[in-house]
């Protein structure tokens, strides 16, 4: 039972990171119907940017709370700008092109970011400093939970709640949902669709940046091509939940994280990746549009 609860906590932590990254995929897919393959690499990029900022600040400021806050702020701004630039250069000229052309462009952008990281920071893994978040563990009835895990869980849940509120209750969020359903009709209603797409990329990239920083601070080791594997897992989470569906991405991320952790805990970790994709295939066969169903308009 203890192992089960422990793996559940670990799984929830990883799952909420997946969920944050998955939200970036699902929101972009909702508006552009495009799999943004470069999103995972933006997440990796954010971990590197975060590391640089953190190292610079830790020389100047002594309070680790301020260092972390500033690191998050600077990284989010940098990644949001990168996300918008990515959209401008690689996706905007392809709005009218066949859908697969944009996918190839996204794959190209992913190559650019991944190899850009390698050229700047080198191919060897980088390690996040250990003492930024104090290594405090609580023992609750035999189950350990760390301060870092608690931070990841709380911040992710707050962010998801804010996002859910924003998309469903505000004017901009409503415009976003309208653009996802039918861009032409949204334009006729006076919505500036280009601005909505930009907002989507800003929000998606910022959430991805938080995810990337969490990956860096939780696992500590980061490497230039980690964007692929985290990105792919997060994308699978988005698909499992139903793409374009924001609660779906959250649910998918959590499910994937818990599933992964339980497999690694009870079976072997070398089969964890394969079984994750077996789960995906089974879900696709029985629920072809994800667990919660997609929220994407389809034209016949």
């Amino acid at each position: 039972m203890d192992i089960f609860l422990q793996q559940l906590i670990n799984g929830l932590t990883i799952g909420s990171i997946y969920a944050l990254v998955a939200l970036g995929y699902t929101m972009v897919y909702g508006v552009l119907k495009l799999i943004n393959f470069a999103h995972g690499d933006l997440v990796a990029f954010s971990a590197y940017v975060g590391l640089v900022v953190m190292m610079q600040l830790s020389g100047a400021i002594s309070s680790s709370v301020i260092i972390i806050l500033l690191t998050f702020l600077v990284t989010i701004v940098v990644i949001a700008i990168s996300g918008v630039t990515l959209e401008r250069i690689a996706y905007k000229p392809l709005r009218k092109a066949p859908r697969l052309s944009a996918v190839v462009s996204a794959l190209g952008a992913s190559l650019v970011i991944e190899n850009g990281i390698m050229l700047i920071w080198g191919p060897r893994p980088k390690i996040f400093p250990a003492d930024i978040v104090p290594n405090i563990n609580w023992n609750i009835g035999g189950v350990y939970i760390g301060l870092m895990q608690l931070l990841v869980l709380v911040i992710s849940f707050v962010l998801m709640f804010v996002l859910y509120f924003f998309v469903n209750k505000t004017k901009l969020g409503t415009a976003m949902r309208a653009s996802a359903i039918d861009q032409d009709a949204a334009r006729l209603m006076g919505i500036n669709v280009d601005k909505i797409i930009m907002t989507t990329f800003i929000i998606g990239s910022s959430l991805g940046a938080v995810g990337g920083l969490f990956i860096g601070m939780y696992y500590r080791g980061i490497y230039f091509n980690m964007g692929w594997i985290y990105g792919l897992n997060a994308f699978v989470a988005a698909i499992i939940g139903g793409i374009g569906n924001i609660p779906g991405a959250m649910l998918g991320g959590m499910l994937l994280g818990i599933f992964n952790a339980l497999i690694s805990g009870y079976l072997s970790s070398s089969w964890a990746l394969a079984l994750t994709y077996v789960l995906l295939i089974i879900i696709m066969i029985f629920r072809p549009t994800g667990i919660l169903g997609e929220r994407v308009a389809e034209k016949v």
Partner: protein
Amino acid sequence: MNKKYLSYGIFFLILLILPFFLSSRWVSVATTFLIYSAVALSQDIVLGRAGMFNMGHALFFGLGAYSTAVLNTVYGVPILLTIPVAIILPLVFGILLAAPIVHLRGDYLLVTTIGFNIVFTQALKNNIFGVTGGPNGIFGIDVPKIFGYSFSSQTSIYFMAFGLLLLTLFIIRNLETSKTGRALHYLNEDSLASECVGINTRFYRLFAFGLSAAIAGLAGVVFAVQFSAVSPEAFNFLQSVLFFTIVLVGGPSSIEGVLLGTFFMFVLPEIFRQFAEARYLIFGVAMILIMIWRPKGIWPAKFGRIPKYVFKD
């Protein structure tokens, strides 16, 4: 039409004399080019002609290569006798794997095929059934022998790969001008409309998967022979991405386009090997630029002749 055959004749002639002018390293690159062209052309049957987003094609390529490798090294079967297995096994797997997912739309199909590919490579790495050799793969595959002649030199393997490409081109030319090819083209353009005029879309989709898997399997045999070794890394998901990109950069359902795409995506990086680190960065930029300037690929396919009066300017 004559012009087309003439240009193909010149192309084949160049390929025929090419290995006698190249150093052994470049003969090896040219051989891999021929194999990858055949795989990309088979990927094009599913992706370009039938319009199904398959991003797991390296699975069938690998299945062919591993069939030969396992049968040869574990059970001692001569290479030539493994060929039927290396064609039939991917064919059966292609149909069985595609059957439950073939109705999935666009991106869902893409993700599921990625899933198949990852499960496949993970199974190979975990040494499934104890015959795949784990993460290192299988070494020491025999050279194929026929009537006492053994394909041991680099050039003879080149001509084997050349034969593979010719066979693939022959199959695709026949597909293009047949009822099946027209049905695939129609269901790609509009699957609902094609179903309404009585095309069994499910049958033709599975047909496309089976045919493309079989060709990829055969290409896998030549690949295993060329390197006399197979490893999971050669058939992982990133290889599938490569084949996917080759088709789209070159031009879906255009033979010339796919050949050009293979040249662009595989041979160019080999030529620019000296810029080792920066080349993939430049490569990514080139992929974006090509898609912006030529969204339908470098050499898009032309279908039929649509009369001028149909268009409005």
